[in-house]
């Protein structure tokens, strides 16, 4: 992120609860649970009262949720509803490039790259409109997270998953 000197690393678990509901549990650096359900995002932190906001206030999040749920549910038509989809293959590795169809959302999220092997995604990279990038290393890749990650290193690691 431009505001920060070094990448901001959080670790935890992302769970699909079925339907349009996701739970994002963060263990490090501070414990926090975010639930996205019924159009509301609820954040709970230790020692703080939970706060929630409507998903519509954070369209990026909505897009992320859509892509995630569609991916996990294996629903290509839903994916195609909100994105133009490009698929690249190399043996059993694959790369999906998702570009939001809505021009308003595209201004905030330029592209989402999903890298995977076989039947499971391994890394998800979101390039935001303002130049910030967020990378989700999934499964075994997450355990390979270096102690002092750099942006370039992480991008390479994510893309290397292909």
């Amino acid at each position, binding site marked *: *992120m431009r*505001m*920060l*000197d*070094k990448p*901001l690393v*959080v670790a935890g678990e992302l769970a699909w609860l079925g339907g349009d509901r996701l739970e*994002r549990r*963060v263990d490090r*650096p*501070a414990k*926090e649970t*975010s639930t*996205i359900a019924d*159009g509301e*995002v609820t*954040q709970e*932190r230790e020692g703080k009262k939970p706060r929630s*906001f*409507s998903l*519509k*206030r*954070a369209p*990026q*999040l909505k897009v992320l949720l859509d892509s995630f749920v569609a991916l996990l549910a294996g629903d290509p038509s839903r994916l195609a509803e909100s994105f133009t989809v490009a698929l690249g293959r190399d043996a059993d590795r694959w790369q999906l490039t998702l570009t939001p169809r809505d021009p308003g959302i595209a201004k*905030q999220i330029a592209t989402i790259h999903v890298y995977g092997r076989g039947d499971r995604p391994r890394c998800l990279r979101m390039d*935001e409109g*303002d130049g*910030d990038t967020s990378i989700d290393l999934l499964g075994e890749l997450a355990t390979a997270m270096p102690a002092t990650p750099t942006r370039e290193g992480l991008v390479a690691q994510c893309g290397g998953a292909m």
Partner: protein
Amino acid sequence: MTKVRVGILVVWLGSLVLLGWMVAAQLKISTDLRSFMPAPTTPDQQLLMDQVGEGPGSRLLLVAIDGGNDTDKAALSRGLAASLRKDPAFTQVVNGDFDMGMLDAGLLPYRYLLSPTLDDTAMDEAFLADQLQQRLDDLGSPAATLLKGWLPRDPTLEVLKLVERWTPAHSPEVRDGVWFSSRGEALLLVQTRGAGFDPGAQGDAIDRLRTAFSALPHNAASHLTLSGPGFFTVTVNAQTRHEADWIGAISTVGFVVLMLAAYRSFASLIFGALPVATGALAGVTVMLLFFTEVHGITLAFGFTLLGVAQEYPIRLLSHRRAGESAVASVRGLWPLLLTAIASACIAYLAFYASGVGGLKQLAVFTITGLLAAGFSTRYVLPYLLPATARDVADTPGLGPFRQWLDSLPRPRWLPLPVILAVAAMLALAPGPFWQNDLSALTPLPRDLLATDARLRGELGAPDVRYLLIVQAPTADGVLAASTALEPVMSNLVAKKALDGFDLPSMYLPDLATQRARQARLPDRLALDTALDGALQGMPFRKDLFAPFVADVQAARAAPLLTPDVFARSPLGQRLAAMLARRGDHWVGLSTLSGVHDPAAIDHAVGAVGVDARLLDLKVSSESLVAAYRTRILHAVLAAAALLLVTITLALRSVRRAWHVLAPMTLATFLVLAVERIAGIPISLFHLVALILAAGLGLHYALFFERDTGDPAEQRRTLHATVVCVISALLVFGMLAWSSIPVLRAIGLTVALGVAFHFCLSILMAPHARQE
């Protein structure tokens, strides 16, 4: 027609046209309903009168956009809000848009003086470190994209706290960034600049709103639902006008048929209409001389009341003998006609004595109109009428009818059972005697009221019944008192005494509070040191928070915010609506929503030690109506006494005066009793209608009492009276079927009155001397 008569007709019509043209050019019609309310006497009533029209609650329009998909509705909501915010007819538009720009950019540094955050913490290293850690967590959370833009300037999120503070307590669900109801309509709250009970201003605002909506793209599938006091005012106005129009049209046709059947002459019909037209135009002209603005209701009621004057030409037409010139017959008729005119004027004088602006106008209009109609009937009309006329005494069936009436028993004891019946009915009548609730007369369909309650609930829009009033000698004093009330009100919300509140100090704290907050802000050196310490071990770029430091320093040095300066920001209008100068002191008006326990609120507010109290607008308006009625009743009593004297003097006999006044009085009370036994509570409009009916009844009694000894003349009297009764029943009987309570009240009362007056004045008249 002779040349002279043509000349008179041309001159008369010419002057009517000229008068009409002058009136049309000068007439300014006011629509503010408050001029029909009595002058307030207590401070609460004064406040009520201001509030009724101009209070923040009464200027609120609730808007729902329905139909089409959510995205379209949200886009329409945003488009509508954007265009209305540019329109000077609206002072506030809220649609749930998460509007970080609520605070003017120039006022942004003031967030540290407006927000209560620093009241219990200092802006030191510990506070900043905690805040920065939270922001770092935010950046790694789903909320990151929401907050990223504000971080360098506002790491403690003061703007967000202010926006949350200024958002209604119970806001509806937000979809696509705007409010949605549970039924899926996009919702907006719009405050108009014009007064709530001014149908003209509200109609204009609603037209602008609808025009703005229809100018938006993709609106075809959607439609607007409006609600709120202003919308009701406009609806009631349009509905009343619409019904009055078609009822008037039917009555006019009926009247034309009646006149043709009664006199078999087109000339009589046309010329018979001239005195009333003259009266109406003269009335409006005189009103223009006395008042700068004429009220729309005065005109509507005035034309109705002037219906009495139609009796004058009818009497002239009916009482003409065969071969007698119109001039001769009017001379014979004149003493009685003059008594009738004078007594009607005295009855209407009661309106003038009521001291209410609109009713004073009404009195001036009707009295002038009656005099003009009466005198033109006496001095102009006879010269215009054809030289010969059919004697109505020969109308088939009239003779037997008169004989039948004459053969009816005229028991002297008749008043006694009538009085007993009236007393019994009044004693046994169900429900309250008086209708104190003005809103009971508003003819709002039930579904409109249900829609209003539903939207109001969903929007958390303020209650229109209760207001919290704060008074102080200065504007800042009001703000200080309001600041003191804030914790008390929050406590009351926690105790569920009410759902939410809006105090002026929530938008602009008083100067002392601002000064205290300013004093707590650190200087540049202290802030830099604290920030450096807090940033230790954090990944934030070192220079990231320079805009924040600059804002804190700007806030430290800035001159304090006054309502005047604040007025230039988008929120200034909202504050201006809550803070008003009244005479030598300032009043703060706070709207409350979801009031459950008014007594607890009043008690808690009273214990704070500032000049604040809960105002119940319903109680104030009822006390106002009760005071108003007492005044009108006194005026009516005085008019009745004056009438007694006038009639006695004119007839030069107490016995004859009794024959005229007794049936009129009894019939008036009979109407009252019948309406009461039917369960109708008596409102001001019933009183006005009773006075009108009494005026008509007085005429019947006067003419029936006249003992001419000539059977033909008696038949003419009967003919004239029957024509008058039928025409009155035609007009007011139609009104009685109206769906609008006000029109129904007037119609039913006058129709019943005319019937009772007619019957009683015949039964109580002295027996016609038999030939």
